[in-house]
């Protein structure tokens, strides 16, 4: 089972941003998306995750196989680290979050309320959630923001193990993740060109 994205166009705020994006991922592969600020990485990831409809083209992996992690981590600040993870584990029907705690180096923080974590600790908790989803494709939007060097390396290991176990990862980032085996796709070249239309002629989509 792999992800195949064919000729995808996506729009944000009613305006096409990217067009004709095609790529594919097989089990065990990772793809890093790059591109300048505002080129549409977040938009593309949300489209792949099924959170917004595509303008054209298709994504042929059902959303049920995808775990999405955005800037906002979905962390409840009044629940403890363990409670937060336990909740997501229950929702995804996977039984244990203990391993996730260990692998993201959160064991010492397990009983602490999430609101008392530092920026980087919060981020680690957000990433630990991926481990309890049990889903093959991880769609990650700038996952290493705020992480220190040691934590970036830790995260790189976690991704690598996920890939070795037959998983896939689609990652948008500006900085180096320490994943040399990942392919890189620069989105700058897929910038949408608006169809040229003379004044006074506008069709269904008003463009």
């Amino acid at each position, binding site marked *: 089972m792999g992800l195949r994205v064919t000729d995808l166009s996506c729009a944000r705020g009613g305006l096409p941003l990217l067009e004709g994006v095609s790529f594919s991922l097989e089990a065990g592969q990772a793809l890093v998306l790059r591109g300048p600020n505002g080129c549409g990485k977040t938009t593309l990831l949300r489209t792949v995750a099924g959170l917004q409809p595509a303008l054209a083209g298709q994504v042929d992996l059902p959303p049920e196989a995808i775990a*999405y992690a955005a800037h906002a981590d*979905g962390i409840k600040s*009044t629940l403890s680290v363990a409670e937060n993870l336990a909740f997501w584990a229950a929702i*995804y029907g996977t039984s244990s979050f203990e391993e996730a705690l260990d692998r993201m180096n959160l064991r010492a923080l397990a009983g602490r309320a999430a609101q008392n974590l530092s920026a980087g600790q919060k981020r680690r908790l957000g990433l630990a959630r991926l481990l309890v989803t049990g889903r093959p494709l991880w769609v990650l939007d700038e996952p290493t923001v705020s992480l220190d060097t040691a934590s970036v390396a830790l995260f790189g290991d976690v991704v690598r193990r996920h890939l070795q176990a037959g998983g896939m990862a689609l990652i948008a980032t500006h900085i180096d993740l320490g994943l040399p085996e990942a392919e890189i796709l620069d989105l700058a070249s897929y910038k949408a060109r608006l169809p040229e239309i003379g004044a006074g002629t506008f069709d269904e989509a008003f463009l």
Partner: protein
Amino acid sequence: MISLLTRDLRLALRAGGGFGLGLAFYLILAVLVPLGVGPAPATLALIAPGILWVGALLACLLSLDRIFALDFEDGSLDLLATAPVPLEAVVSIKALAHWLTTGLPLVLISPVMGLLLFLPSEAYLWLILSLTLGTPALSVIGTFGAALTVGLKRGGLLLSLLVLPLYIPTLIFGAEVVSRGAQGLSVSTPLALLAGITAGAVALLPFASALVLRINLR
């Protein structure tokens, strides 16, 4: 699903979670109205059924924006929408959690409120019964409104504006049950209608709410 319910209840019970505050609001309203209207027992008894129902409705209303807004802000809603649970179920569970933390306490405290407003003693039974039947509808309708306004920063009062008209039938029949009860008249018609509204809302509105939520998330 159970885990979602327990999480929501637990969040409500934690600091700043809002449990008990609907209650407090209800109590405070019962204090304010006499202070505004004047202390005469006859007047208060006359308006008690209406005020008690309007108060319950407002207490529900004020806690609606908690249903989704926090989950939206911290991204949990995006994650729930991509999680292996149907969004309709999520919405229903959220409505249930809202009722358990708001509607149910209101029902339980309403006799005290009746006392403060000199509600005639025949009406107490009907007050409790009508609130028990009616507040689930308030929660379900409110969840729909909350789903509609979820993306808007502090949509709180827009939410009120949208939801209040939807609350009107429930209010009318609910208050009618109590005031008829207070006068010793038959209450079966408004009670049946109230039950009908609740049953209909509980059965159908979650689908609308889930739909609207999906639109708001994209």
